């Protein structure tokens, strides 16, 4: 196992795998419809060529390499190449427009950048006049780029590198040997929910500690395999597809394109899987929609056996005692329904599946576990290498994020904020000593900004962002995220924004899930022309009202939160979108911004108006702007008398 002292940087881990499992598949990518495989020794060879190429072009120790694109093997290898030279890769969110690139490129003083394709190169070229330092551009996919001047292809870069390597044979190994475990290995930018994004500097030691802890906790080995499809700029992908990949030596698989992820997942059948709750939700929605089209007997089988699974599936997975009859039925269901369903979802081989990033609905969570997918939750931030809490195999709880991961200490501050300490903490925010000092206290605890509680068994339960937890005018606690999540657990609701801080009552904006509600409407022969039209239908309002009232009924039973029941709501005329700054790139609602932007609507919610006219400028994906106007109906929701929690 790679725990010997010398293996303390990622490039050294890479060379180690190339030596001990040279022929073992390290990276796969589907290209022209066929899965291509690169072994560890081939990957090491490519990384060597990239690193030498970059060095020949003037990339020096301490420099930053911007990496922009979908999950492509060559981009992952470029990360390792930059690290081998003592440089720092800076992956960036590939769907951000050029204007958003400018800030990060300047902040990180980028001189070298590698981009996936013409789309990304065009954005970099557009950003260039505002980023004086940017001088070297490389690209992976040459389509459409043949006649661009001043950009260099990957093939050319590696050709230069191989030449350089031949001329200076000891160079690469000497550079790798210079690396120190406490060097910064990666800079990941925070999503910028508040203010400008900050570059989080993580060392080799921190990410290796996180990778090691996770790998040992879940017994990951070189035989595991994972689908790498989440943004490379996101800390989770860096942990699973890079740090753990290089620690455990397993295989990462890059999908053909963003749209083929489902098919690719089915073909690869990974053993280890990560997806945000939204993906699990979409998968389930698709299954449910397709089941409605299935024959009567299949529908009956599905209903019957998911019923069995709901009754005893999770208990069987957790190793609890379950009666013989139920065990027999469950085994039967496994043959008829669960097995084939896991197969369709590409989850047949999954040993461990994780979700994080947002709260997952208990029903959704139970569903996957009950059909035999070992879905667990974890908790962490960019600043903690996405490694704070993990749920153990046989001790999952639906409403917690698990117990402290090996090597991590958790403490709850008096304010309710979750504090963590351990080897996986950030070294610093880049060029932001003030922010670093603010987030790490004198005792070395990092302030997560999340409000949480630790339950009797040591499991952490996250309630909301600490700064979002407010009070209603009456003084009752108001946790907007908590309410929004409850709303979002309904498949028909995609986003929700709850208001109530310092107000008399709670009101909410709702975004319907266009796919799910659209399908619902089609089945009822309800004609609609687009999102805005569908969102304004009376029938849809009724549908959403039911959801809101169910949430109210739940809140009524939760003691202090009973006062947070939703009085009035409206369905927004457009989908909240990161391009309009309403969501962050990781799709978290910017509540304050939304509240200000749609102030006319929040005013209408609280003034008792029945209808309000609104006009909004929207940015299309192509960068142009348009206007959406609508008369929005504001609906009242039924509320329930508070029931004190029994013995609470």
């Amino acid at each position, binding site marked *: 196992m790679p725990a010997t002292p010398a293996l303390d940087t990622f490039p050294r881990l890479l060379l180690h795998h190339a030596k001990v499992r040279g022929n073992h598949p390290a990276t796969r990518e589907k290209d022209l419809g*066929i899965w291509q495989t690169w072994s560890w020794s081939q990957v090491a060879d490519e990384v060597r060529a990239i690193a030498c190429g970059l060095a020949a072009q003037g990339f020096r120790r301490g420099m930053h390499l911007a990496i922009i694109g979908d999950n492509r093997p060559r981009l992952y290898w470029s990360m390792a190449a930059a690290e081998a030279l003592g440089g720092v890769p800076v992956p960036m969110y590939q769907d951000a427009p050029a204007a958003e690139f400018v800030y990060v490129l300047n902040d990180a003083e980028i001189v070298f950048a590698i981009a996936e394709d013409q789309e990304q190169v*065009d954005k970099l*070229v557009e950003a260039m006049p505002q980023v004086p330092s940017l001088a070297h551009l490389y690209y992976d996919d040459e*389509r*459409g780029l043949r006649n661009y001047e001043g950009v260099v292809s990957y093939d050319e870069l590696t050709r230069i590198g191989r030449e350089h390597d031949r001329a200076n044979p000891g160079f690469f190994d000497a550079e790798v040997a210079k690396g120190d475990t406490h060097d910064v290995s990666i800079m990941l930018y925070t999503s910028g929910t508040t203010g400008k994004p900050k570059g989080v500097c993580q060392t080799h030691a921190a990410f290796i500690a996180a990778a090691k802890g996770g790998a040992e906790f879940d017994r990951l080995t070189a035989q595991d395999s994972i689908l790498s499809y989440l943004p490379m700029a996101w800390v989770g992908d860096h942990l699973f597809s890079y740090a753990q990949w290089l620690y455990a030596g397993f295989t990462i698989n890059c999908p053909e394109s963003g749209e083929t992820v489902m098919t690719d997942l089915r073909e690869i059948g990974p053993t280890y899987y990560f997806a945000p709750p939204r993906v699990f939700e979409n998968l389930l929605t698709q299954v449910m929609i397709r089941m409605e089209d299935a024959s009567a007997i299949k529908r009956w089988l599905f209903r019957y056996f998911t019923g069995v699974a709901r009754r005893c599936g999770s208990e069987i997975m957790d190793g609890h005692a379950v009666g013989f009859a139920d065990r027999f039925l469950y085994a039967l269901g496994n043959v008829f329904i669960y097995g084939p369903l896991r197969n369709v979802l590409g989850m047949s081989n999954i040993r461990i599946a994780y979700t994080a990033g947002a709260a997952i609905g208990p029903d959704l969570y139970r569903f996957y576990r009950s059909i035999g997918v070992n879905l667990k939750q974890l908790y962490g931030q960019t600043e903690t290498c996405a490694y704070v809490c993990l749920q153990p195999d046989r001790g999952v709880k639906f409403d917690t994020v698990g117990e402290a991961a090996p090597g991590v200490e958790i403490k709850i501050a008096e304010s309710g904020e979750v504090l963590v300490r351990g080897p996986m903490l950030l070294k610093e925010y880049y060029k932001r000593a003030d922010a670093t000092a603010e987030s790490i206290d004198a005792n070395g605890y990092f302030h997560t900004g999340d409000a949480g509680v630790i339950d009797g068994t040591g499991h952490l339960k996250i309630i909301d962002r600490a700064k979002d937890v407010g009070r209603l005018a009456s003084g009752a606690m108001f946790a907007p995220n908590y309410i929004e999540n409850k709303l979002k657990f309904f498949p028909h609701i995609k986003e929700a924004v709850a208001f109530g801080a310092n107000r008399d009552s709670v009101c909410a904006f709702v975004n319907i899930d266009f796919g799910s509600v659209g399908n619902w409407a089609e089945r009822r022969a309800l004609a609609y022309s687009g999102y805005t039209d569908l969102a304004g239908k009376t029938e849809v309002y009724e549908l959403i009202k039911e959801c809101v009232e169910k949430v109210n009924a739940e809140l009524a039973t939760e003691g202090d939160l009973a006062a947070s029941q939703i009085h009035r709501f409206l369905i927004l005329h457009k989908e909240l979108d990161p391009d309009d700054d309403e969501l962050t790139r990781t799709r978290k609602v910017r509540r304050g911004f939304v509240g200000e932007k749609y102030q006319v609507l929040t005013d209408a919610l609280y003034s008792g108006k029945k209808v309000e006219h609104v006009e909004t400028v929207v940015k299309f994906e192509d960068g*142009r702007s348009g206007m959406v106007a609508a008369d929005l109906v504001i609906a009242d929701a039924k509320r329930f008398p508070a029931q004190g929690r029994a013995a609470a």
Partner: protein
Amino acid sequence: MNETASAGAHHLEARRIGDPVLRLDHISLAFGGVNALTDISFDVREHEVRAIIGPNGAGKSSMLNVINGVYRPQQGTITFRGKERRGMDTHEAAAHGIARTFQNIALFRGMSVLDNIMTGRNLKMKATFVEQAIWWGRARNEELLHRRKVEEVIEFLEIQHIRKTPVGRLPYGLQKRVELARAIAAEPSLLLLDEPMAGMNVEEKQDMCRFVLDVNEQYGTTIVLIEHDMGVVMDISDRVVVLDYGKKIGDGTPDEVRGNRAVIDAYLGVAH
């Protein structure tokens, strides 16, 4: 969007427009007493994007059908790659590297996207029927080769995610893209596109523009396209022919055509 714009800018620099490959002289076509086309002449140069525009019923599709031999004009001649003839023959047109798409989508709805595109390779398959039936020898190698080519087209048009989906289940915009894929798979030297952007939303149109320009740039394919969205045409064409009631009323670069009085009248309507 910038992407299209910059791609366009680069593509104009990169491509060299050559001599005329196709010349139409004094073409007239009538169905019974209806004159669909009257005395029309224009040419298409190597590697250019040539648009034919005009209001509904102007004779645009008829013109395309004359070019690839579906209709035989009563008068006039067609000169394709130096050979003058009265009318094209459809098979000859295909064999000489002319491929097309249709206004109302002519795909095999029950077949997968992959198989539909594969049919575009039909003319290039040389193995005998028996070889193909038992998938042996030449047929096997050929299929591997053609499949690779088809996969390249699939990647080119970014339709990997629907590779195995039956065409009938796809939305309209994607079906149009599949039809373009099938035409490209034939590796044409002259590509005829009959309203490739009809019925599409803004985003789909932009994608389609990008693909048309990419085909033109990447493969050097000469493109003749019919379109009635003026904006699209002006952005991507090198030269434009304008038809109205079967007569040619304008011909030139997009800017020239835009300033042409007869064209403005035909589009905006004028009291005669």
